[in-house]
C-alpha cells in the first residue's frame, strides 16, 4: 500500500509537469491546427533559463537570497524567456506558412525543434547540469506520513501547476483574450471579419503556451534535478501523448491526459520495469489513437465542405 501511494505521489508530480507542457501543445493546436514539435524544446530552454538564474543567485549551495525569492525569479525568468522564444518562433517560422498546405508548417516545426536542440548543444555543451534542489530545499521538509514521502518540492510543483491550470481556465473562459482565442480556434477568417486581431491573438497564445512550458521546465529541473539539451524530446513526446489522450485542442483534456500519463509512467516504472516505461506510454498513445482518435474528452468533429 505504501509503495502504491508513493507511486501515486510520484505520478501526480510528473503528471503535473506533463500536463503543463501538454496545455501549450493543445492551445497552439487549438488556434492554429499546428502540431508544434518545437514545444518540447521550449520546455528544455525554460529549464536551462531556470538553471542559469539559480547560478546567478550564487548556485544551489550558496544562495545569496531567500529561497522563495530565488524560486520566484527562476519561474518568472523561465516563463518570460520561453514565452518570448515561442512568440519569436511563431513570428519567424510559422506565420509566413499560415496559408500553405498543412504539411509545410509541420516540417518547419520539425526543423525548429532540431535547430533548437542543437543550438543549445552548441551553446552549453552536452554535459548534464544539476539543479541540486535538495541542497536548498532539504528533502526532509514536507509531509512524511506512514512511509509515504511527499517532499516540499513535489507539493510546490503540484500546487503551482494546479494554480496555473485554473488560471488558464479562467483566462480562456472569462476574459476578452480568451474569447478571442476561442473565436480564432473556431474560425480564423470569421474571427478576423468580426474585428478580432488574429495575429495578436495567435502571438498571445504562443506566449502563454510557451511560458507554461518554461515553468514546466523549471519544475522538471527542481524535481528530477537534471537539465540537458535533449531533455525536451522525450518529455515533449510524452506531453504530446498527454494532449492527444485528453483530446488535442481541449484544455481540461490536456490536464487529465497529463496526470494519466504521469501515473501510467510511474506505475510502469514501479511495477514492471523502467526499461519499458517509454514503450508503455507510447503504446497507450497508439491505442488511444486507434480506438478513440479524438481523445478521452474530445468530441468528434465533422468536416464541413
Amino acid at each position, binding site marked *: 500500500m505504501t509503495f502504491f501511494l508513493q507511486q501515486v505521489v510520484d505520478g501526480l508530480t510528473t503528471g503535473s509537469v506533463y500536463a503543463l507542457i501538454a496545455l501549450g501543445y493543445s492551445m497552439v493546436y487549438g488556434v492554429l491546427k499546428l502540431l508544434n514539435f518545437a514545444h518540447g524544446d521550449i520546455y528544455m530552454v525554460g529549464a536551462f533559463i531556470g538553471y542559469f538564474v539559480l547560478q546567478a543567485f550564487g548556485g544551489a549551495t550558496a544562495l545569496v537570497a531567500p529561497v522563495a525569492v530565488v524560486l520566484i525569479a527562476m519561474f518568472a525568468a523561465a516563463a518570460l524567456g520561453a514565452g518570448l522564444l515561442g512568440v519569436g518562433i511563431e513570428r519567424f517560422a510559422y506565420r509566413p506558412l499560415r496559408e500553405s498546405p498543412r504539411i509545410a508548417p509541420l516540417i518547419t516545426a520539425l526543423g525548429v525543434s*532540431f535547430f533548437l536542440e542543437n543550438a543549445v548543444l552548441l*551553446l552549453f555543451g552536452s554535459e548534464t547540469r544539476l539543479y541540486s534542489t535538495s541542497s536548498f530545499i532539504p528533502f526532509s521538509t514536507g509531509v512524511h506520513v506512514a512511509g509515504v514521502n511527499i517532499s516540499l518540492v513535489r507539493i510546490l510543483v503540484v500546487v503551482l501547476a494546479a494554480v496555473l491550470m485554473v488560471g488558464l481556465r479562467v483566462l480562456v473562459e472569462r476574459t476578452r483574450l480568451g474569447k478571442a482565442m476561442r473565436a480564432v480556434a473556431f474560425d480564423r477568417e470569421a474571427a478576423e471579419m468580426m474585428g478580432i486581431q488574429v495575429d495578436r491573438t495567435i502571438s498571445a497564445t504562443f506566449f502563454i503556451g510557451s511560458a507554461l512550458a518554461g515553468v514546466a521546465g523549471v519544475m522538471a529541473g527542481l524535481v528530477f534535478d537534471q537539465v540537458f539539451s535533449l531533455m525536451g524530446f522525450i518529455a515533449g513526446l510524452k506531453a504530446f501523448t498527454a494532449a492527444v489522450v485528453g483530446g488535442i485542442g481541449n484544455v481540461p483534456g490536456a490536464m487529465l491526459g497529463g496526470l494519466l500519463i504521469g501515473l501510467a509512467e510511474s506505475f510502469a516504472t514501479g511495477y514492471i520495469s523502467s526499461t519499458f516505461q517509454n514503450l508503455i506510454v507510447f503504446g497507450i498513445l497508439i491505442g488511444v489513437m486507434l480506438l478513440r482518435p479524438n481523445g478521452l474528452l474530445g468530441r468528434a468533429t465533422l468536416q464541413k465542405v
Partner: protein
Amino acid sequence: MSTPNDAPPRIGVDEWVARSGERRDRGSGPSAAIVRALERVGWWQRLAVIAAIVALFPLLTSSDYAVRVGVNTLLLATLALGLNVVVGWTGLLDLGYVAFYGFGAYGFALLSSNQLGSSGIHLPSLLAIVIVVVAAALLGLLLGLPSRRLQGDYLAIVTLFFGQIFVETVTNVAPKVTGGPNGVVGIDPLNFFGLEVTTTRGYFYVLLIVTVVIMGALHLIDSSRTGRGWRAVREDPLAAALMTIPVNKVKLLAFSVGAAVAALAGTIFAAFQAGAYPTDFDTPFLILVYAGVILGGSGSIAGAVLGATVVSVTLELLRNPSQAATLFYGLILLTLVVRVRPWRKLGAVLAALVAFGFAVHAVIGAISASAVAGHPRSGGWVGDALGSWVVVPADPKGPGNIAFVVLILGLVALVQLKGTARTVLLVPLLYLAAFVWETRLVAEASITRQILLGAILIVMMNARPQGLLGSKRVEVL
C-alpha cells in the same frame, strides 16, 4: 478593351493561372534556354547519361573514402526517393519512415547472421532481401491502416510514435535477438548466386543499379493511374473521392511503396556496414532524409536524388575544416550574388564588408590585444586570408556563443526589415556570421551539421517550398 493576347492578364486571375505552364515554357534568359534544351532530350536518355557519368566516379578516384561517401549518398538518395512517394506525391507526413529503413536492416541482419538459432540463419541475399522487402511493405500497410480513420496530422503522430517504438524495441526488448544497444554484428555480405560483394566499389555499383531502377519505376508510376491518384489525394482527398479514386487504397499503397523502398535500402546498408545498430535509425537520420527531400523539391524524382546528394556531400565536406570554410564562404558569396541586385549594390555590400572587418579588427585590437590573439579555425588559404580581417579572441568560446545568439536574432530582424535598412544590417550580420563560424561552428563540426539540417528545413519551407527542382504550385481559389 484589349484581348488577352496582347496584354498579359492580371497576376492571380484565372487566365494568368491557366497560362502558368505556358509562361514557364516561354521563359527568357540562359537558365530557361538550358531547361528547354534539356527537355528536348527524353527522360530516359537523361537518366541513362547521368547514370553513366555517376558510374565513372569510382574509376576516377583512388580513394576508398570518396567511394564510401558515394555509397552513403546513394543510400540517402534511395531513401529520399521512397519518402518522396509518401510525402511529396501523396502528401502524407510519415515521421516513422526511418523505422522501415531500420526494419530492413534488422530484418536482413537476422536472416544473414549468427543471431538466430544455434548456428544462425544464412539465407541467400536475394531471398533475404525479397522476404524483408515484402514484410516491410506489409508492415507499411498495417501502419497505414490507421490513415483510414486518422486523417492529416493524426497520421503524423502515429508514425512518429511508431518510429520511437521501433528504436525502443530493438534497444530494450529481447536483447538476445536484436543485440540491444550493441546491435547485430557479423552480417554476411551481399551474395548473388555465389558472387560476393565485398568491396566498397561493389556496393556502389549495386546501389547505383538499385537507385536507377527505382527512379525508372517511379517515373513509370508517376505518369500512371496510381501516380495521378496519389497527387489527386494530396491536393484534395474529398475531390479525389468524388472522382471515384479509392482514397484509402491509394494512401495505403503509397505507404507500403515507401516502406518497401526504405527496407530495400536498409538491407543493403546492413550488408554494407556488416552490422545494424539502433542509433542509426533515430530521429536525426529522419531529419536528414527529410532535409534531402525538401531541399530537392518534394514531388520531384530528380529533386529527391539531387537534394539527397547535396545534403550528403555537404555534410561530408563539413567534416574537414578547410573544405568546410570554402563551402561556407562560397555559399554566402553565392547567395549574395543571387539575391542582392543590382550589381552596384552587391559591390557596395562586399566593399563595405571588407572595410568593416578591417576596421573592427583594428579597433578591437587597439583596445585589447588578447581579443584578437586567436587564429581563425578554418585551415587552408581561407584561414590565412582571414587572419587580420576576422576577430578571433584567445578564448573564443564565450564571445562566440553570445555572437551566435545575436546572429540568430539579427537574421530574424533581417527578414522583417525592408529596403536600405536591410542592406545596411546585412554588412555587420555577414561579419558576425564569419565571426561565429571561426570561433564556434568550425570547432563543433558535428553540431554544425545538425544545425544546418534544421535550418535547411526551416528556410526552405519559408523561402522556397518547391525546393531546388520542384515546380511552384499555382492554386486557384
